[in-house]
C-alpha cells in the first residue's frame, strides 16, 4: 500500500501553554475526501491552523508528513508551493490589494517556487473568468479588493475561487460551510466537487453534516477533546446528525 498524501501521527499541540491537540492520528490518501467533524472546542481550528503553519501554535509531539515531506518544518509559503491550500474560516480583508492582482501574484509565486514559468496577465484573466463562470460568481470579484467589504458568503466563495485557481493537491476547508445560505453552500460544494479528480485530497473540517450532503466524503472522523475519537464512512456523519456530539463530549 502506498504512503497516504497526508499522514498525521500522534500530533500534540498547545496554545498559550494549554494542550489542545492530544495525539491525533489521521491518514488521507490522494483522491480521498476526508471529513473531520467535532463539537466546538474539540480542536478543529487548532488542527487547521497547525496544518497551515500559523504562528502561536506549539507542536509538542508527533509529526505531519505531506507527500513524504515534514510539513511542520515548512514555511506557510512553502506549504502553498507544495500544493497545500487552506480555505480559512475567517478570510482576512485586505483593502488596497485587488483580488485579481493578488490571485495572480499568489499563483505566480507558487509557480516560481516550483520552477515553472509565470502565467501572463491575459492567460490569467481568461482562466479567472472561466473559473468565475463555473462558480456562478460575478467578474466584478476580480476588480474588488481582497475580501474588503465582502459578505460572509462572498468571502467563502472567494476562498473557493482561489482554490480553483491555485489547483492544490491537498485542500483543507476550515468550516467553509459556516454561515452560508443554501445557494452559497451549493456553489461552495460545486467548487469542492470540481476538485475531485482522483488525485487531489480534501480535508473538510465542519461542525455540521450539511455540507456533506453535497460533498460526499470517503471517510468521516470525529474529533473530540483533541483526539480522533471515531472514524467511519458517510454513515457516521448521518449518525452524528441524528444523535449529536453528546456521546463524544466530556461528561
Amino acid at each position, binding site marked *: 500500500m502506498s504512503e497516504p498524501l497526508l499522514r498525521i501521527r500522534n500530533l500534540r499541540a498547545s496554545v498559550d501553554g494549554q494542550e489542545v491537540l492530544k495525539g491525533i492520528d489521521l491518514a488521507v490518501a490522494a483522491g480521498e475526501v476526508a471529513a473531520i467533524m467535532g463539537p466546538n472546542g474539540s480542536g478543529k481550528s487548532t488542527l487547521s491552523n497547525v496544518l*497551515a*503553519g*500559523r*504562528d502561536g501554535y506549539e507542536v509538542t509531539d508527533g509529526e505531519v508528513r505531506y507527500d513524504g515531506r515534514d510539513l511542520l518544518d515548512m*514555511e*506557510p*509559503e512553502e*506549504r*502553498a*508551493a507544495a500544493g497545500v491550500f*487552506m480555505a*480559512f474560516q475567517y*478570510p*482576512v480583508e*485586505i*483593502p*488596497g*490589494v485587488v483580488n485579481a492582482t*493578488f490571485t495572480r*501574484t*499568489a*499563483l505566480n*509565486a*507558487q509557480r516560481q*517556487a516550483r520552477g515553472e514559468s509565470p502565467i501572463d496577465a491575459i492567460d490569467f484573466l481568461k482562466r479567472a473568468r472561466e473559473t468565475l463562470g463555473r462558480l456562478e460568481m460575478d467578474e466584478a470579484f476580480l476588480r474588488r*479588493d481582497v475580501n474588503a467589504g465582502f459578505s460572509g458568503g462572498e468571502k467563502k466563495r472567494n476562498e473557493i475561487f*482561489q482554490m480553483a485557481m*491555485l489547483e492544490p493537491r491537498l485542500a483543507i476547508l476550515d468550516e467553509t460551510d459556516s454561515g452560508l445560505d443554501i445557494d452559497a453552500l451549493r456553489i461552495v460544494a460545486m467548487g469542492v466537487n470540481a476538485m475531485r479528480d482522483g488525485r487531489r485530497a480534501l480535508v473538510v473540517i465542519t461542525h455540521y453534516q450539511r455540507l456533506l450532503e453535497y460533498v460526499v466524503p470517503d471517510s468521516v472522523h470525529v474529533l473530540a477533546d483533541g483526539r480522533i475519537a471515531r472514524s467511519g464512512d458517510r454513515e457516521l456523519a448521518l449518525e452524528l446528525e441524528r444523535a449529536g456530539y453528546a456521546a463524544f463530549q466530556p461528561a
Partner: protein
Amino acid sequence: MTENWLAGQRAAFAACRGALPGAGTPWVDALRAQAFRQFEEDGPPSPKVEEWRSGPTAALTRQVFAPAVPAGPHPAPVPAPYLAGPRHRLVFVDGRYSAEHSDPGELPAGARLTSLGALLAEDPSAARELVGDPEAFAEERLSLVTDRRPQALVALNTALVSDGAVLIVDNGVALAHPVEVVYLAGAATVPSAHHLRTLIALGAGARASMVEVHAGGSGSVWTNHVTEIALDASARLEHVRADAGTRSAVRVDVAHARLQAGTAYAGFVMAGNTGAVRTETRLVLEGAGADGEINGLCLAGGSGHIDALTRLDHCAREGTSRQLWRGVFGDQARGAFQGRIRVLAGASGTNAALDNRNLLLGTGARAESKPELEILTDDVACSHASATGQLDEDALFYLRSRGLSEQTARAVLMAAFTGSVADRIADGDVRAFVRHLVDDRLNALGSAAS
C-alpha cells in the same frame, strides 16, 4: 550652540549677499536685509515653538550650513528625466540654474518658465510684481490671521535665496505638459546650504502641473526650499514635491498657496530623504468655492526623521479640502504629522477632511499624529481620523498561506497601505513617476525590516 549657529549664518550672509541674484537692485537688497533682520529676531527653529515641536531642530543646528558653492567639488550626476512623456524641464545644480541640463521646451503663448536668477537679472520689475509687496515676501503671508511668527527659515530663505523655478501663466492659458523641476545637490563634504525659492503664479482659469524633485545630497547638505503659489480665480494646479533618493542631512520644504475663488490646488508630497525632512504645506482658501487637496507619503527608515505639517485655512464660504497622509517608518525612524484645519468666521458651507495613518515596521520606529480642528463658524462639515499600527499579522499570514514569501507579503501590504494616496495624482506620467519612487522606497524599507 544657538549663538554659534546664528553667527555662522550672519557671516554667510555678509560673505555672499553681494553675489546673490538681484544684488544691486535696490528693492531686492532691501528685501534681503529686512528678511535677515527678521531671521535674527526669530532665531533658529526651536522645539519650544508649537509648530516645530517635532521638527528636526537638532539636525538643523548641529552644523552651521553655509550657502553652497555653485557646482561644488563633488557634483552629482544629473539624473535622466523623471517623467516619461513630454515635459518642460528645469534643472538646478547646487542651488543654481543649469542651462546645460535644462530643457524648458516650447511653452504656449502666455506662459513663462524661467529661473528666479534670470528673472531678477532680466526683468526685475516683473519679479517685483510677482512678489507683490516685497515687504511681505512669503514669511508675512504664511497664514492669514495669527501665529504666523516665527518663520525664521522662510526669512533666511528670502535673505539667502540663490535660485529656483518660476512659472507664470496668464489668464486662461493651459500647459499641455507637466513642468519637471529638479533640485540636485552635490555630495558636499563641508556643511552646505541650498536656499531655493519656487514661484508659481497662475492667472484666472490657467492650468498647470508641476513636479519638484529633490535629488542627491549628503550628510553635510541642508536644503531650505520655499514654494510660493498664487492661484487666481478658477485656476487649477497639480503640484508634486518629491524626494528621489535624496541623502541630505536635512531638507526643509515649505509650500504656501493662496487660492482665489473657484480654484483647485491638488498637492502631493513624497518625503523619503534618508536624513531628516520637515515638510510644510499651508493652503489659504481666500476665495469662495476654492478646493484644496494635500496628500502625502512619509517613508523613512534607518535613523530618518520626517516631520510633516499642514495648515488649511478656510477663509471663504463653500470651500472644500481633503488631506490623505500615510507614513511608513522602519528601523529607528521617527515620524510626526501635525495637520490643522481652521475654518474662519464667514467660511460657511466648508467641507474639510483629514486622514492620517502610520505604519510602523519595527519596534524601534515611532510615529505621532496630531490632527487639529479649529472651527469658528457654523454650518461646516469637518472630519479627521488618525491611527498608528503595525502590519496586520493575520493579513501577512493569509498572503503567505497563498504562496507569497514573507518579504513579498510585506511589500504587498505596504503598497496597499500607501497606494491610495499616489492614485489620487491626476496626470498619468506624474502618477507613474511617483509610484515608481514609492515602490523603490518601500522596497528599501521592506528589505531592511524583514
